[in-house]
């Protein structure tokens, strides 16, 4: 399964515009955004809080409509002229900022939820696969616990396993590690990369943490503050597989130096504009 998945999940965003509120008086959240998310790679979008990057993710996921422009998934139009809101679907699974494991279901019930809802597998097979996937991700032993009983870092990992159960084309991660402390975060990064190497699923990752972006991404898209538009797109040529030793390499520092100024500039603009934390 991992091999052919490598060619799936490329997203092309073409001239996307999102305006909130009434025409004219509205707030422009996304301003003529165009960039590619290459299939089988990790693309990280970095921008100040509230810049509109989540709006873009919501448009790909099908939670919000675009005002104009179009988004393609593997050459297939998700939304565009004539249909400005994509339909949510199991080919694009979101991992939410605050986590969205159902607290009333046990971890394994959560993981097996997707295939059962989609009628893809018999219950027994779904649970077998869920058990296997959790074991592969080092999550054995917590199957019958509820999400409220495990740490938030482990919850995030369970949520990613849940997302991978039905082989989505692309994972959409919306600042998934925002609420974690930096030690947990570093463990989570390596765990995410490990999952990525095993599954080769395309990942679209949103963050405001530049170091996280460069460490994880094949491609880093730095956004301007609201309205958001790519300010700088970098291809990070640090070879994969990566681990934490990358952080101390010269190449990594060079990327940091190259981008820090751009990000900082946007952060100041965002601050001056009195943007609220979103």
């Amino acid at each position: 399964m991992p091999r052919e998945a490598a060619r799936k999940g490329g997203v092309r965003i073409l001239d996307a515009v999102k305006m909130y509120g009434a025409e004219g008086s509205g707030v422009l959240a996304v301003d003529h955004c165009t960039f590619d998310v290459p299939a089988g790679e990790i693309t990280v979008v970095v921008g100040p809080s509230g810049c509109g990057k989540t709006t873009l993710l919501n448009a790909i996921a099908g939670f919000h409509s675009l005002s104009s422009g179009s988004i393609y998934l593997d050459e297939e139009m998700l939304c565009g002229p004539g249909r400005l809101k994509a339909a949510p679907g199991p080919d694009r699974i979101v991992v939410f900022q605050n986590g969205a494991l159902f607290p009333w279901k046990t971890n394994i019930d959560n993981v097996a939820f997707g295939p059962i809802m989609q009628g893809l597998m018999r219950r027994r097979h779904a649970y077998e696969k869920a058990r296997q996937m959790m074991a592969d991700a080092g999550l054995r032993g917590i199957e019958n616990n509820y999400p409220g009983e495990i740490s938030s870092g482990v919850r995030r990992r369970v949520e990613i396993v849940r997302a991978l159960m039905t082989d989505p084309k692309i994972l959409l991660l919306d600042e998934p590690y925002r609420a974690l402390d930096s030690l947990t975060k570093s463990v989570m990064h390596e765990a995410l990369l490990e999952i990525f190497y095993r599954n080769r699923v395309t990942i679209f990752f949103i963050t405001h943490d530049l170091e996280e972006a460069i460490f994880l991404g094949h491609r880093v898209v730095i956004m301007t503050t609201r309205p958001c538009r790519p300010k700088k797109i970098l291809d990070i040529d640090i070879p994969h597989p990566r681990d934490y030793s990358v952080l101390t390499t010269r190449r990594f520092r060079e990327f940091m130096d190259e981008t820090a100024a751009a990000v900082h500039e946007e952060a100041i603009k965002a601050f001056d504009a009195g943007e609220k934390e979103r």
Partner: protein
Amino acid sequence: MSESELAVDMAPNVTSWALTRHRFSEWLKSPRPYLMLIGFAGFLGFWYLSVEVWKLPRFAEMPGPTQVLREWFSPDPTYGLSVFVEEYYLHIWVSTRRIAIAFFLATAIGVPLGLLLGWSVRFKQYVFPVFEFLRPVPPLAWVPLAIVMFQGSETPVIFLTFLASFYATALNTMLGVESIDVSYIRAASCLGAKRWQVFRHVIVPGALPFIFTGLQISVGVAWFSLVAGEMVSGQYGLGYVINTSYTMVRYPTIVIGMVTLGIVGYVTSAAIRFLGNSMMQWRVRELALGGDR
């Protein structure tokens, strides 16, 4: 493979009963029960002294605690009602039965209505204004119409009891649905759940904590309006006991009725709390870990 998961798998065996037992033994070890006893002793002591010893001006007519206790546990009560009299249990039974019917109806109608109100914006736009208009009308104001609308003495009382319960249940259920984080609904539809699957797997369980809060309130207000209803009509029930004892000048019996109401009311709400805990294991276990996430 599944047999080898020992360490963490112990936790799922925490049942609400085990938790209740654990909490009870912790409670006995803390100073709380003893402080509570002192509180009760203070209250009863004040009652005793002011009524039976000092005979304070406004208290002289009141039944004292020893008088009430003697009457309550007397095989041959002066005013006709004690734990040895069959009629006492008949009153309790009649009131409890009315509560049970009214509460059952309020839940059976209130929960689905609340779910619909929270789930469908269109439905809410039709129904909610009417609901909000009727809700502030106190059950007692319904007494005349209830008597006109329903035959006999039983149905009007049940109707009055039902009303307040119904509002509490429906409103809390609606708020429960509205309190659900939109991320859960989005996650479910991302994972391929259809609309009714989202309803069954996200909306209903997500609203459950609020629903049970509603049921707790509901059973409380049911007793409120039951007693009011029973004072107006009927030949049995604890509200009836209190009211007739007043007109017949059987003061200790009034207090027996009041205390009995307190006990039975407490038992019903504890039963609902217990039911809620056993239906929401995830919450019980989350709270057992001391987290309120």
